[in-house]
C-alpha cells in the first residue's frame, strides 16, 4: 500500500508540473468570458447558460486532462526509462499501475476541484444577485470527477497496449460513444415504426450496456434548475459513483492482466 502511495504521489507531483496547467489557464479564460458574455440575456437565461456552460467547460477540460494524462501515464515512464528503476525495485507491476492511475486521478481531482471552486466563486461574485455560494455546483463537479475517473481508467487500460497516438483517438471515441447513452439506449430499443432489425437492436443494446456510459454522469440539470426536484437524486448519484468505481476496477484489472505480461 505504501508503495502505491509513493508512486501515486510521485506521479501527482510530476503531472501537476506538466503542461496541464495550460488547460487550466484556458478554462479560467473561458470562465471569465462566460461570466460577462451573457449579461445581456434575461437573468434566468443568463444563469442557466452560465451554469450549463460552466459545468460543461469543467467537464470538457477535465476530459482533456484525463485523456492526455491517462494515455501518457505508462508510456512516459517507459520512454523516459523511469519504469526500469521502479520495476527493478520491490514494486509489483500491479502496484505500479495502480499507483500511476491514482496519481493521475489525484491530478485530475485537484484540477477540476480548482476549476469548480473558481466557478463557484465566479458565480457568487458576478452572477448570483444575492452572491450566494452555490455549493451544489461542487456536487456536479463531484459527478464530473467520477466520470473522469472512468475516462482515466479507460485511457490507462488502452495505454498498456496501444501507443499514445492511437490511444488518444480510441479513448475519445469510446468517450463520445459512451456519452450518447440516450442514443444508444434508444437505438437498442424498439423503433417507432418497428423497422429496426433485431441484430441492430442487439448491437446497440450491447454497446449501451457494455461500453462505459459516460452519459450517466451528466447530472448538471438539477444544479442548473435548482427548483426542479429529481426523485431519489442521492440514490442516483450513489449508484453512478458505484458504477464508476466498479467500471474503473474492470478497466484496471484488464490493464493489470495485460501489463503483467507486457515487456517494458
Amino acid at each position: 500500500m505504501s508503495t502505491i502511495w509513493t508512486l501515486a504521489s510521485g506521479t501527482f507531483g510530476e503531472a501537476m508540473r506538466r503542461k496541464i496547467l495550460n488547460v487550466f489557464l484556458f478554462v479560467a479564460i473561458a470562465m471569465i468570458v462566460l461570466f460577462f458574455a451573457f449579461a445581456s440575456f434575461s437573468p434566468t437565461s443568463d444563469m442557466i447558460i452560465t451554469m450549463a456552460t460552466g459545468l460543461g467547460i469543467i467537464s470538457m477540460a477535465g476530459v482533456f486532462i484525463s485523456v492526455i494524462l491517462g494515455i501518457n501515464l505508462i508510456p512516459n515512464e517507459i520512454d523516459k526509462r523511469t519504469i526500469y528503476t521502479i520495476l527493478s525495485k520491490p514494486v509489483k507491476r500491479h502496484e505500479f499501475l495502480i499507483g500511476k492511475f491514482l496519481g493521475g486521478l489525484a491530478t485530475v481531482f485537484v484540477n477540476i476541484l480548482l476549476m469548480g471552486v473558481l466557478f463557484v466563486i465566479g458565480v457568487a461574485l458576478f452572477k448570483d444577485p444575492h452572491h450566494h455560494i452555490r455549493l451544489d455546483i461542487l456536487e456536479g463537479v463531484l459527478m464530473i470527477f467520477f466520470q473522469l475517473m472512468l475516462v482515466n481508467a479507460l485511457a490507462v487500460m488502452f495505454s498498456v497496449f496501444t501507443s499514445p497516438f492511437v490511444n488518444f483517438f480510441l479513448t475519445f471515441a469510446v468517450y463520445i460513444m459512451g456519452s450518447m447513452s440516450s442514443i444508444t439506449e434508444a437505438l437498442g430499443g424498439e423503433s417507432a415504426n418497428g423497422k429496426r432489425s433485431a441484430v441492430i437492436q442487439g448491437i446497440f443494446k450491447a454497446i449501451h450496456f457494455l461500453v462505459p456510459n459516460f452519459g450517466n454522469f451528466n447530472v448538471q440539470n438539477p444544479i442548473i434548475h435548482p427548483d426542479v426536484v429529481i426523485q431519489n437524486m442521492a440514490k442516483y448519484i450513489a449508484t453512478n459513483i458505484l458504477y464508476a468505481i466498479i467500471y474503473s476496477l474492470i478497466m484496471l484489472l484488464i490493464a493489470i492482466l495485460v501489463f503483467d505480461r507486457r515487456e517494458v
Partner: protein
Amino acid sequence: MKPNARLIAIFVVILLYVPIVLMQAWIDPRRHEFEPKNDQIGTIGKALPIEFTLVAAAGFREAIAGLLWVRTDKFFHEGNYDAIVPMVRIITWLDPHNVDVYQTGAWHLDYNFTDNEQRSDRRYLPLSVALLEEGIQANPTITKLYADLAFTHYFRKMCNYERAIYWYRKAQDVKETDSKQPYSTDPDTGKRDQYVIDPILGKPRPLADPTIVGHGLAHALQANGDIDGAIVQWQHCIDEHKRLIIESPETKYQDESGLRVAERNLFETIERKKFRTVDTQPPINLDFDAWVVRTAPRQFRFEGRANFIGATAFKLEGHQVTWGPVDGARIAYRLEDDGYQQPKELPFELNVALPKNVTIMQDSASVTHGKFSRRANLDQDSHGDNPMYPFKAERYKLTFWFDPRDPASSPPNLGDRIGWLGEGLTDSKYLDLSGKVPGSLQGPDEKANVRLIKKVIYLTRDDIMGTGEKKFE
C-alpha cells in the same frame, strides 16, 4: 502473476460486468428524469444539426437549450412566430426542466401571436395547454406551472373554470415533501419519503404559493359558482399567509399584502353571498341583440345592445341603492368557419398540426350606456402565406355572447345584480342554458352551469368579401 491468479482476475472482470449491466438498467429510466425521453431522441437528432446533437450529448444539453431559448426570444421580437413553436419543442426536449421555457412559451402561445389589432391567434391555445401539461409532467413540483395552466383555463381565453379548479387543486396538493427539502428520515424504516408534518397545520405543508395558487383557486371556485368553496379557500389562504409570515420572514411583505387581499376578499365574498341570494331577483331582461356591419371586404363593425342600465339600481341588504351606470360588461364575439370544432388538445410535436386555412377570430367589446360597437379590420391579416384569417370556407358562424361568470366580462358590481352564474339576468330571445361556452376547450360532455346570453349569425364568404356597407343580423 501466477496463472491461477490470472484466471481468477479474468473471471472477476467478467463477473463485475454483471453489476455494471444491472446498474445501467436501473440508471436508464432514472436518467430520463433530466434527459429527453427515448422516443424524443430520434426527433431531436432530426431537428438539430449533428454538431449540436454531439455537443448536447457531451454534457452541454442545457447550455444548447439555453442558447436556443435566447434565440427564440429574438424570433419573438422579430415577429417570426412560426419559428417559435419548433424551437420551444426542441428546447423542452433537450432540457425538460427549464421551467421558464414552458411558462414563457405557453404565454406566447396564449397571448402573443396576434393579428395587427392585437387579437390573439386562438389556434395555438390547445398547444399551450399541451405544453404546460407536459411541463407539469416533467416538473411535478413546480406549482407555478399548474397555476399558469389553470390561469389559461380561467382567464378570458377559455372560461373553463372546472379545468382551472382542477389544476389549482393539483397545485395545492403538491407538498413540500415532494420537493427536495427538507427530508425527514423515519427512524424505524430509514425511509426518507415520510411527510414532514407541520406542527401548526397538523399535516404536510403545501408547496404552492398562497397568492398565486391559493387566491387563483378561490377566484376560480367563485367563478364556477362554488361560493362556499371559495369562502373556505379564502380562509385557507389567510391561514397560509399567517403561517408564512411567521415562518418565512424574507417573504413577509409579500404575504402581508396577500393576507390583506385575502381578508378583504373573504369579507366581500361572505357579504356578497348574503345579498346576491336576494338582490338578484327578479332577473333583469337584458333585451340583448347583436349584429355585424361589413364596412369593406373583411372589415367589420361588431355592434349590439344589452340593457345593463337596468342593473344600475337595485336593493342591497334591503335598501335601494344606486351605483350609477353599470359599464364594463363585455360582449364576446367569435367568427369562425362554420362547423369547425376546436380540438381540445393538440399534441405538441415538432411539426405542429395546426389547423391551417381555418379562420378564427375572437374579441370582445365593452358595453357603454347599453350599447357596444367595435371595429375589426381582418383584411390586414388575410393575405400572404399562411395568414391568420384566410377566409377559405364558404360559410361562417358568428357568435356573440355574454358569460356572467367571466371576471373579464362581468365586473363584481355587475355581478351583484346578475348573480354568480347569471341568476339575475334573462333575455327573451337569447338566453342560453346549454352550458357550452364558445371557444372554451371543453370536452364533449363538459357543460358549464351558467346562464349565457348567446346569439349566432351565419355569414357566407360573399358576405365577408363583398364591398359596400351591409348589416347582418
